[in-house]
């Protein structure tokens, strides 16, 4: 069963294994760091390596400085600042600082002070990211804490004017160098903080280390850390490092860079404004054209339906109808007229000659009259003759002369033939003076 080294008696560390692990851990856990103290127990090897203990009043740590090109003379008891990293001298298990750079603290007073202050503030957590405030996404109101005389301010104002003139800038003028600058900067920062700006820009342009020293003030560092308003620090040039830069919420390498950062993407907004303005015009023109078109088409439609047009149409229709009517009427009329003419002509042609007819009629009548008269006279004569005849024929006259007429009694039929009677039949014989009745006694044939 595998266990972690050093956890059981069977799996105990060897000193070298432990030292290796320690060495590894030390390298990983500590990077390089600045350390300051007094040199004690200095020993220089013949090869040129220097071994010493760096101590303060209570404690000390072994240091080793391997031979370097620039040989810095070291003296026992002198104050130095070293840059180094921790290492373990494994043969003995000694912990030591491997010195990379060493500075005489007496000579580099500012540098030493800077290092010390930096360390101190670092330990106090002033540089920690979690303690820093975020800049608002949009800075509308900006406090600038700087010298009104400095070139930095002009640079910043120029950039903001061209990039984002909308930022409302309030200047909190303060000297930025000299012995009394730090408290004045502090004061300006406090006043600015109370004015509730979106951000405070603490800045100054480049200068000598001494000029910039104001920004390495411990009190100022605490002040910056305490401000409610996010602070942007832009002190000096790219190469300059200041406590103010370290402790501020946001650091910019130059005042110009700060101005760029603060301006944000306003240019884009401005560009957007221009675009939107053009788009707006296009849209409204488009809309107007669209509506114009709609109005036109409707206007056209309305015009088509205008009463006068309708009237015209109806008038035209009426005209056509009238024309049609006229045509059909006139053709019919013409036909009728023709027909009439024709008939008339025919009639005229066929008109009987009334006068002739009349004369004819007269003639006929005359003729008729003559005929009737002659016929009448003829008839009259004939009648006279007949009457005469009749007179001659009258049986009574015959009877007078002795002739008689015998007829059957039963039916008064005149007997002209003997077959008409049989024996025993009663007969009546007419005589001129009267009648006699007789009975057939015998029929005698001639």
């Amino acid at each position, binding site marked *: 069963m595998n266990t972690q080294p050093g956890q059981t008696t069977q799996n105990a560390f060897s000193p070298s294994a432990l030292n290796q692990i320690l060495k590894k851990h030390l390298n990983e856990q500590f990077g390089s760091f600045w350390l300051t103290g007094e040199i004690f127990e200095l020993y220089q090897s013949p090869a040129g390596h220097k071994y010493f203990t760096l101590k303060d009043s209570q404690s000390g740590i072994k240091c080793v400085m391997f031979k370097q090109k620039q040989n810095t003379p070291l003296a026992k008891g002198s104050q130095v600042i070293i840059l180094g990293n921790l290492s373990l001298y494994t043969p003995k298990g000694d912990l030591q600082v491997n010195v990379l750079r060493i500075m005489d603290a007496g000579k580099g007073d500012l540098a030493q002070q800077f290092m010390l202050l930096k360390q101190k503030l670092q330990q106090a957590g002033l540089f920690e990211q979690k303690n820093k405030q975020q800049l608002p996404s*949009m*800075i*509308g*109101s900006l406090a600038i804490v700087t010298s*009104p*005389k400095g070139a930095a*301010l*002009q640079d910043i*104002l*120029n950039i*903001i*004017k061209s990039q*984002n*003139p*909308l*930022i*409302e*800038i309030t*200047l909190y003028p303060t000297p930025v160098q000299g012995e009394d600058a730090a408290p004045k900067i502090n004061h300006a920062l406090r006043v600015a903080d109370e004015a509730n700006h*979106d951000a405070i820009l603490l800045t100054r342009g480049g200068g000598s280390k001494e000029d910039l020293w104001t920004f390495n003030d411990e009190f100022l560092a605490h002040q910056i850390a305490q401000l409610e308003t996010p602070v942007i620090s832009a002190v000096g040039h790219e190469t300059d490092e200041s406590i103010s830069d370290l402790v501020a919420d946001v650091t910019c390498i130059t005042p110009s860079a700060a101005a760029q950062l603060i301006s944000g993407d*306003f240019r884009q*907004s*401005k560009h*957007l*404004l221009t675009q*939107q*303005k053009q*788009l*707006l015009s296009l*849209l*409204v023109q488009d*809309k*107007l054209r669209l*509506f114009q078109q709609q109005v036109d088409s409707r206007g056209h439609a309305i015009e088509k339906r205008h009463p006068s047009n309708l009237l015209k149409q109806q008038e035209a229709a009426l005209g056509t109808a009238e024309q049609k009517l006229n045509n059909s009427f006139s053709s019919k009329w013409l036909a009728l007229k023709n027909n009439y003419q024709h008939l008339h002509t025919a009639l005229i042609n066929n008109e009987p000659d009334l006068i002739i007819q009349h004369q004819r009629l007269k003639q006929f009548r005359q003729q008729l009259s003559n005929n009737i008269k002659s016929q009448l006279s003829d008839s009259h004569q004939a009648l006279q003759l007949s009457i005469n005849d009749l007179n001659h024929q009258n049986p009574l006259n015959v009877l007078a002369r002795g002739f008689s007429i015998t007829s059957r009694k039963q039916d008064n039929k005149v007997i002209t033939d003997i077959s008409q009677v049989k024996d025993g039949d009663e007969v009546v014989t007419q005589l001129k003076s009267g009648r006699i009745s007789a009975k057939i006694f015998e029929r005698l044939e001639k």
Partner: protein
Amino acid sequence: MSQTQSFEKKLEQLTKVINQMEQTDVGLEQSLKLYEQGIKLTRECQKIIADAETKIEQLMQQADD
């Protein structure tokens, strides 16, 4: 409200106006109203910029004095 805020807000409003105008069902009257509103917003935006530029100019002069 800061100038930047009001500028951003107006720009946002302008964008909204344009979006509305892009709708097909917006009538003529409404279109004109929106256009008027849009132009007003554009002018206001431009005025904010112009005012701000003047202000900075003044600030620079003060600093020079």
